[in-house]
């Protein structure tokens, strides 16, 4: 099977998402599609999977032009997509999920689950997937859920499989297993498209690489010949540096001292369990861990937006266990929340309004009850310029900015004042290489100024390149420490600790 995209163009109103894109996908080959967020990767694949109709160009399968009127047409043509966000019913079993929509039926429309289970087992064996057809989805780890998605696609006899950012939700170990699956699919003769913005992954698994920027194919590469720096440059359109330059580690006094902290989830389950840590001035402490091990709750408790169930939090020797978010803010704590869309910015507010979202009451921006919009606007424009927030004007709605610029807006707001401690949760999640580089630089700048920094990230690479000290969080506890006093940081060891394997 060979799929050819010829001159594909897709517009949304005035926005050109794809412009004259040519791409060939071949059986038994992994095509890596690399590009920043907003480069048009998802649009292109949605065209290929029949969700969007292109405004120009054509799709050829084995040389014959085809027209997809909907995803059903694409599936019948043998094209399957594994989405970044899984589309599974948690209370159904694996087999039930796999057959959903194309259920094998016996006489009198009887649902033949026995047959479904057998078919799932068969696919399992063919590709070495190892999934129990009778297990409920909600009991499966994310990596296995992803395999269920793959089985779903294979069950619908796909010959070409598109993976949209497949590793975003996986632990390092799961990523390794996932690559093994991709390789077995390739040797079975499937054509595979692997969409990502992570360079090292694409170099590891792809046979060919195409780079998309601003809706166009700007370059191609072959792993082994093309380097990650060359690919990054194609992706961003300018030379990029991966190295984070830091001065030698010389921590000051303890700023944040967390003792025996316990925090509960909404359902009263324990999220953070008797956790103790500290952050010193001039150091970057990273918390690694698979998402959902209590990191979010820890950060929210430290930021004062979640109640503490037990233990104490001291900041510069002051007990702030029960202090409000505003109080902590006034003391010089800054917080970059993990979900910028929901808690970091207000999409319907302008850039200027978002820039003062937690400082509007300050004497710089208001007198008594009256806002000083003149001062707000001046300050916001200066901050936007200083922190490289790309917007046509500060009166633009923040929701209209790209993800990277929204995040830079949050960073600008939090760092553009006299801070002593920065708590950043997933500071670069979903961002492009250029924005990541910039935000990392700003975080390191804050460290050089003597700020203490606590970073929570599920990106191990980010933690490893930025942090002076790495703590691994598993089931609400710190289970390992690396760097500085602890063991030297090693990706494999950290990955094992993240998976809860006692080291």
């Amino acid at each position: 099977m060979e799929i050819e995209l010829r001159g594909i163009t897709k517009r949304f109103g005035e926005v050109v998402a794809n412009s004259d894109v040519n791409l060939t996908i071949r059986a038994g080959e992994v095509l890596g599609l690399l590009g920043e967020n907003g480069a048009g990767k998802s649009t292109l694949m949605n065209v290929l999977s029949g969700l969007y109709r292109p405004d120009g160009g054509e799709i050829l399968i084995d040389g014959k032009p085809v027209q997809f009127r909907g995803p059903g047409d694409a599936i019948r043509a043998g094209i399957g997509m594994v989405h970044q966000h899984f589309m599974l019913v948690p209370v159904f079993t694996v087999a039930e999920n796999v057959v959903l929509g194309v259920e094998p039926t016996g006489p009198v429309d009887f649902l033949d689950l026995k047959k479904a289970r057998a078919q799932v087992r068969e696919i399992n064996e063919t590709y070495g997937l190892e999934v129990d057809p009778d297990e409920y989805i909600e009991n499966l780890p994310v990596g296995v859920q992803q395999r269920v998605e793959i089985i779903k696609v294979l069950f619908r006899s796909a010959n070409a499989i598109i993976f949209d950012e497949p590793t975003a939700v996986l632990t390092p170990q799961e990523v390794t297993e996932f690559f093994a699956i991709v390789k077995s699919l390739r040797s079975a003769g499937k054509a595979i498209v692997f969409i990502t913005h992570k360079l090292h992954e694409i170099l590891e698994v792809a046979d060919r690489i195409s780079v998309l920027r601003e809706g166009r194919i700007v370059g191609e590469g072959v792993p082994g010949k093309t380097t990650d720096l060359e690919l990054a440059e194609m992706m961003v359109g300018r030379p990029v540096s991966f190295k984070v330059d830091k001065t030698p580690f010389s921590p000051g006094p303890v700023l944040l001292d967390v003792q025996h902290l316990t925090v509960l989830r909404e359902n009263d389950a324990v999220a953070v369990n008797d956790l103790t840590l500290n952050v010193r001035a001039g150091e970057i402490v990273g918390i690694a861990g698979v998402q959902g091990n209590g990191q979010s709750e820890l950060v929210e408790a430290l930021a004062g937006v979640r109640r503490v169930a037990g233990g104490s939090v001291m900041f510069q020797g002051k007990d702030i266990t029960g202090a409000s978010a505003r109080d902590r803010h006034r003391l010089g704590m800054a917080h970059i929340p993990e979900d910028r869309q929901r808690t970091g910015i207000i999409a319907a507010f302008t850039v200027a309004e978002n820039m003062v979202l937690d400082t509007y009451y300050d004497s710089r921006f208001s007198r008594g009850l009256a806002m000083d919009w003149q001062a707000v606007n001046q300050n916001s424009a200066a901050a936007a310029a200083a922190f490289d927030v790309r917007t046509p004007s500060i009166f633009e709605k923040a929701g209209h900015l790209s993800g990277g610029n929204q995040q830079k807006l949050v960073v600008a707001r939090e760092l553009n004042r006299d801070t002593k401690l920065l708590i950043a949760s997933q500071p670069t999640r979903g961002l492009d290489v250029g924005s990541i580089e910039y935000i990392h630089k700003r975080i390191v700048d804050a460290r050089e100024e003597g700020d203490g920094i606590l970073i929570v990230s599920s990106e191990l690479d980010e933690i490893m390149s930025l942090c002076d000290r790495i703590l691994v969080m598993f089931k609400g506890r710190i289970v390992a420490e690396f760097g500085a006093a602890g063991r030297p940081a090693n990706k494999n060891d950290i990955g094992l600790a993240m998976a809860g394997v006692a080291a």
Partner: protein
Amino acid sequence: MSEQGETATLTARLLERAAPKRADFEDLVIVPVFAVVVALILGGVAMLATNVDLETIGRSYVALAYGSIGSINALSETITAATPLILAGLGVALGFRAGLFNIGAEGQILMGGMAAVVVGFSFTGLPMLVHLPLALLAGIVAGALYAAIAGWIRAATGAHEVILTIMLNMISYRLVDYMLRMPAIQRPGRSDPISSSVLPTAELPRLLEWLGPNLRLHSGVFLMLAAVLFVYWLLFRSTIGFEFRASGESPEAARFAGMRSGLIIVLVMALGGAFAGLAGANQVLGVLGRASSGFSAGIGFDALAVALLGRSHPFGVVIAGLLFGALEAGGRQMQVDAGVSIDLIGIIQSLIILFIAAPLVVRALFPWGFRKGAPASKE
């Protein structure tokens, strides 16, 4: 130096305001205008369907126009009807801006009106300069406190404000009826639920009596204008309004930014109730002169429509309130001249809201009023 200069240029460029977008114009102007036009046409269709002949339909719309803007008296009636709608509408709009659906304006009007009436007839011998502000203040405070009950329960327990305010409306109807039969309030010698009359020192002075004795326009209109300017300042020029709007757009982001959501909810509800209470006081001190059973007359519910039609913007609320006032004043004339039931006005008002709430219907009916192409989206 050059880098500094560059930053300065960039900063200056970022401070430039973009011209208002076509989409904003469509949303703020074209949709409401078309909604009104379509509602009037469909009102005619409704009349046709009920066997009203074309001539009468024509006559009724002429009467509608004449009765609302055709004479000094008509204008006086329109503004008199619009004033409480705008006041209560401002209260509802404040709630909308903060993400709260305050259905309770009706009950808040009743409580505010009752308090104003009681103060209005109870204190004899006070000069007007003291008595009138006191009566108005009583209305404001009563409305604010009554609404704050809903706000407090919402903030403390998470119970939904829609249910709470509906229930408080129910309570207020009966409470008013009960109070109107209390010896201290009921007019001496009457057995029906009606209060004593407000003393002249607590009445809102009429403005146009020198032109004609029937012109009911009273000085409540100044209160209304002051309220509009105050709400504008509050929403867009004050830190409190910033918190209101932030909470309305994204309660979570507001909380993460250190705003106290519980306090904001109580404050918004109380302020909204204060405006509704002022609307009630405005009615009893400026128009009715006393309180009777159900004197709120649905103003609190029309205020919801006014706030929606006015896009929760104080100036929009003024325009919407004037339109609804005009429909009410014109509707009465329509009933007299053409014999068409005033219920038709209710139909037209409801249709306007229907179309405002469903802009896509308006777009479909008038494709030439809007720029072509689906709304743009990235990826």
